């Protein structure tokens, strides 16, 4: 399979803290690639380095064959990198449809046209809202949505421009089980032209959706492989999956 994204020796330090340290990562076009690891492993920072909202201290990022290390976040977005954030960044006073329209507007040829005109909408926008169960809420202001609905809208906004790489930072955080299933179904139904790189703590969702998984620990990549390879990897068991299983057992007992 073609490689869509490659990180080589990617590092980011914040003062004395090495959040991401010499990471090599390859993401194939069309894959559903998960980044997992304990809190503080550097997953969100790595996504930000790829999205361009955080600059790398060292190392390089290639996207679609081009070295995008020095590209700004908007330029990467224009080149086809879509992303959602851990915490909602939607516009609370705008309606669901307006939030989607703002994303669509930038992809049009004349975003600078400074005159009122017909609102920008597309079949793709309808499809994204429908896929995430938000079509009937298009008129509602975002501040009236539930937390789970906001999370789904975040994904819909990122999907609406059909990015070639979709970066999702904990898309299912705070969702109910039913919403999480809907999200998984929607992401699985995305065409193969859309590659998904996502950070998620819900391991059921990860092993259900991912075609490849990279495990991060203390800012470095501990292992990369298929879900079954990761599940059986003893290093991963010790560093992450073991502790997750223990945690889940504690919760079950409690």
């Amino acid at each position, binding site marked *: 399979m073609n490689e869509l994204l490659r990180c080589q020796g990617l590092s980011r330090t914040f003062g004395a803290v090495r959040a991401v340290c010499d990471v090599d990562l390859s993401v194939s076009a069309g894959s559903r690639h998960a980044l997992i690891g304990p809190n503080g492993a550097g997953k969100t920072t790595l996504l930000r380095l790829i*999205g361009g*909202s955080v600059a790398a201290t060292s190392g390089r990022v290639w996207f679609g064959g081009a070295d995008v290390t020095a590209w*700004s*976040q*908007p*330029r990467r*977005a*224009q080149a086809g990198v*879509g*992303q959602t*954030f851990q915490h909602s*960044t*939607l*516009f609370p006073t705008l*309606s*669901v*449809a*307006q939030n989607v*329209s*703002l*994303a669509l*507007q*930038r*992809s049009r040829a004349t*975003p*600078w*046209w*400074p*005159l*009122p*005109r*017909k*609102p*920008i*909408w*597309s*079949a793709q*926008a*309808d499809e994204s809202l429908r896929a995430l169960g938000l*079509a009937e809420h*298009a*008129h*509602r*202001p975002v501040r009236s949505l539930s937390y789970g609905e906001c999370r789904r809208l975040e994904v819909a*906004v990122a999907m609406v*421009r059909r990015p070639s790489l979709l970066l999702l930072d904990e898309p299912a955080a705070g969702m109910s089980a039913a919403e999480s299933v809907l999200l998984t179904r929607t992401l699985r139904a995305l065409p193969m032209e859309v590659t998904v790189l996502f950070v998620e703590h819900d391991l059921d969702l990860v092993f259900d959706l991912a075609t490849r998984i990279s495990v991060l620990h203390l800012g470095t990549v501990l292992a990369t492989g298929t879900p079954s390879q990761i599940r059986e990897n003893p290093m991963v068991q010790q560093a992450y999956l073991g502790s997750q299983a223990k945690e889940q057992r504690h919760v079950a007992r409690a």
Partner: protein
Amino acid sequence: MSAVPAGLGYARVSLRSGALAAAIAVTLVAAPFYLAPYATTTLTRMLVFGLFAASLDLLVGLIGLPSLGHAAYLGIGAYTAGWLALHGLTSPLALLLAASASALAGLGAGWISVRSSGIFFLILTLAIGEIAEQIAQSWTAVTGGSNGLYGIPAATVGPLTASDVASLYYYVLGGFGVGMAMLWSVSASPLGAALRGIRDNKTRMRALGYESTRYELFAFVLAAAVAGFAGGLLAAQQRLVTPSDLGFTTSALALFAVVIGGSGRLWAACLGAALIIGVRDVAGLTVNGHGPLLLGLLFIAAVYLMPHGIAGLPRRRK
């Protein structure tokens, strides 16, 4: 093409707002017929200052960049139009050249300023405004120094000369309409929605592909151009331009007008500007010329009683 859902529409104007705007327009057009000449002159000043305040609101309210040096562009426009009139160009072309000169100055100043934010943006704009005032004071050959440009000929439109109170009023009202239409068209367009998006959440807008700095620079240049246009009207109205027209006090008054009117609504900035001119130039006369004192009291009262300005009052009552 799929159907546009409900809840999407940036340029929707309700029937009530449209009717209100039409009523205000008719009232303004008829003003010289029912107002005394002094009141008409005051209204002319309100229109000029209102357009200037609305141009600042494009920065403060629409994209969230409060400037303390916006009068620099009003002054550059006024000096440009005044200088051109003194050299024989009294037609509305002088207004366009005044707007262009201010836009050019705004491009340079904006290129430096929009890379900063918060207190640093305030300080930078203040510093640039002070530099502009110093240049106006010292470049005597062009600006007339501390005396300013005086004896500016009346503006002309074809064979008509805006020399009496009523014709000058209509000249300024026409310019006010053009300037406000330009600001409104941007504010109500998808571009305006993008500017508001950058004001509210730069992180998201950058992730959507919006180069926020370019949009901020665009807003800065447009606001400077409209301020320069208002400056051209100021030169025609006062027939005199002095360094104080681009000083800090003028900038601060415009910011005050935006705050007291309610930032984010162009009409509210005009209302704030009208209130300031009314208090300073009309009510001030009744208390032995203590207009600035009244303005100070008004500002304190507005901060406590109307934190969202005049535009926020209906919302507060609900």
